[in-house]
């Protein structure tokens, strides 16, 4: 754990150094599940990010976080616009936002499609916070 903390700390420090002049980077969580919207942002803040949670893709698109968000943590199965749809929409709009998918449903086809459409990572719930951090690193690297 210490080693891990160490790695994390390094990254956080990196971020801090980079963003001393700026605020914390914004991460957006889009999930229709309430418990996810409750728990995940806290974890992200612990990581040192700013986090905002949205209950639907439409809510997210309607907000001003669209342009500001540095990374999107996205549920797949949602009523209305699904996570994949959102991903496509953003690409259409030319918003190059890295996307990390989180989902409870094990569906290989969706995973494939998501990755093909440029998703950084595809995580199955329940996932460990370490796995999430790795995915975030990958997303940042892309950035």
């Amino acid at each position: 754990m210490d080693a891990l903390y160490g790695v994390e700390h390094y990254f956080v420090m990196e971020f801090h150094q980079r963003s001393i002049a700026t605020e914390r980077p914004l991460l957006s969580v889009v999930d229709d599940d309430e418990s996810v919207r409750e728990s995940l942002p806290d974890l992200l803040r612990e990581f040192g990010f700013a986090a905002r949670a949205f209950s639907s893709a439409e809510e997210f698109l309607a907000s001003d976080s669209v342009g500001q968000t540095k990374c999107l943590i996205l549920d797949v199965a949602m009523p209305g616009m699904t996570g994949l749809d959102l991903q496509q929409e953003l690409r259409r709009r030319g918003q190059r936002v890295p996307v990390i998918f989180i989902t409870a449903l094990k569906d290989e086809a969706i995973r494939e499609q998501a990755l093909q459409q440029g998703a950084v990572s595809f995580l199955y719930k329940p996932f460990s916070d370490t796995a999430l951090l790795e995915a975030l690193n990958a997303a940042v690297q892309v950035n």
Partner: protein
Amino acid sequence: MEGLLEDPAQDIKRLQRCINDLISLLALPAMWSSDQPSQIVHILLDALLRMLSLDFTYARLKDCVAIVPIEILRIADSCKLKVTPQEIGGMVSNWFEGDGQKPLPSMRDRFRDKEFSRLPVPLGVHGEIGMIVAGSGRADFPRQTESLLLSVAANQASTAMREARLLSEQKRIANELDQRVAERASALGQANEELRKEIDERKKIEERLRESEAALQRAFNEIKKSEAKLRQVIDTIPTLAWCNLPDGPNEFLNKGWHEYTGLSPEESHGWGWQVAFHPEDLPPLMKRWQELLVSGEPGEIEARLRHYDGVYRWFLIRAEPLRDDAGKIVRWYGTSTDIEDRKRAEEALKASEREFGLIINTIPAMAWSARPDGYAEFFNQHYLAYVGLPLEQLQGSGWTVAVHPDDLDAVAGTWQSIMASGKPGEGEARLRRFDGEYRWFLFRANPMLDESGNILKWYGTNTDIDDRKRAEEQLWRSEAFLAAGQNLSRIGSFSWKAATDEITWSEQLYRIYQFEIGVPVTLELIRTRVHREDLTLLEKMIEQARNGRNDFEWQYRLMMPDQSIKYLHAVAHATRDQDGQLQYIAAVQDVTARRMSEEALGKARSELAKVARVTSLGVLTASIAHEINQPLSGIITNAGTCLRMLSADPPNVEGARETARRTIRDGNRASDVITRLRTLYSKKDPQPELMDLNEAAQEVTSLSLSELQRNRVILRQEFAEDLPPVRGDRIQLQQVMLNLLRNASDAMSAVDDRPRELVIRTERDDGDRVRLSVKDAGVGFPPQASDKLFEAFYTTKTDGMGIGLSISRSIIEAHHGRLWATPNDGPGATFSFAIPCRLEGWASGGTGVNRSDPATNAA
């Protein structure tokens, strides 16, 4: 020639010898006793040979009879000459050619190396008898004396031969005469014989003639007697008889005639009889009489003859000609027969026939009559009017033209057998009406008999049975349908007279009970089949029936001989028969198959429900996973967050507390889900139990809440408060509710312009039922598809199997309920089911349900 005086002693001896020889010769005839010329010659030749010491003597005789002359040759023993008569004959043949007038010379020539002198001597004056030749080798032969001897011998011989010939001639003639006489005598004898025979014959014929004459006489006497008798007969027979001459006038009238008319023979003789006839009838009578006389043919006429008391009576006058061998009419014989009664009877008959005809044509029936041989004579007016044909066309066998071609053979056959039996009979056939239409008729025929039982005539009527026939056909058809229907549907029927226990079964019922068709049915028999456990039920039914219960319906079992069980469902209805007696008419259906299939269906249904549960389980697995994974994910995230918070510098205790709280909450959530799922998908078999529908619905909605929320479905629950408990399978009913909820949710998945409102409502339904309905605001369905929705494999979802609603419906129906769908006034549809509060008649034994008696409640 030798000289005479050479030796006078020798000469004297020679002359003596010569005289001796002459005497001998003259004595020869004594030796010629026979009449055979040849014998004479033989003797002669022998004598000569001796006497003259010749070498040979030859004789040739001209036999009158034989063509070949007789030649005889005698050769002396001392002469060794071997010669035949013929050779000698040949030598002297030339001598014979002369006429014998001249004396023949002797010759000397050589013959067989010896010299012979031959002297021919003719026999007969002119040698007509023959010739003798004497031959000798002596040179001096023949001497005078020898010649003389020879001549005398020849004369003697000739004479003898002539005599012999004469004698033989005589004899021959005598023989002939004798013969002739004999012949004549025999001929005469024969003729005599014949004559005698003829005489005998004649005598016999005469005899016979006499006899036949006698017979003739007798016959004549007989005839005379029978004439007298005949006369008596003619006078006695109760008919008037007469005899007329060929030209017409009367010769004889019998006694009866005279007695009837009262006319004397003198008055009626000749043409006098005319006065006895009615003046009106006389002219035609005379005319007819003249015609008969001319034609010579027998004939008759009717005329009135006057009785001596002045009354005229009808007579039939019959006349017959009597012809002789040449064919000429010699007499007319006739009878006059009293036909007054007959005439009266005839008129009466005519009158009654007219009347009869009137009747027969008036009665409203088709009538006909036929001769004993089947020749149809009469058809009444109705018949003619019906067929539209004239009488002449129908007579004989012409009536068959109106009979339908298909029925003709049968009718003809029936008519034949009726006639043959001589008994009344009937048959049916179609008869063509005048307008061409065929109608069914019943033909009835009755024979009219005389005293001895012979058939005089056939009488018949035809009755229109067309309507009846059509009704019969329909009846037959419907009976056939019924039987077929019963056979097909395995429904038998029976009737039961309560008072007499008379029971009648249809064929199908026999088959159901497996009794031989036609066996008389008794209650005892039925009891042998009814299942032991249902016997009391049967007794109860019978008792109630006797007490006059109106309608029955009951189910019972049969135990068949092979120990198999049949389930029967019977419905009976009380009626009154024609006599007013109480009679039950019942239908019995073999529902074994249905019961078996129901049970099988029930099993299959629960299997299928299990499968459906499993299937939907599969579908739900995703959502289950989802349901559980959400709280799990929350737990892990929160836990991670908690750790980080505590590791921060300074530790974020408040934050950690919050995350711990969330963790517990999520853990409970997950546990809840599992509990609910366990309840829903337990492996217990369906069992009917009293349950609260609201409670069950509540569970289902709670379980589905998250899913519904995810689908943005707004759920509204309107549960009735006073909902009575229902008996049913909780799991199965919840299955249905789940299915309805899901369907409702799916129906609204594309709805964006209005709230996705789902209303689940429970309420009391009329008739002691409970209703649950699920109303959505989705796409709805066209009204005509309302039943199709419930068909198996009907689905509008791309990933649906389409069995949800069909299973739901069968579950509800197993609860004796109903599941249906109705489109809303607004958008969407409402799916509802209603089930009775309490279920009836589930037991597999015999339970009686009396529809007309609500108080009775067997369950």
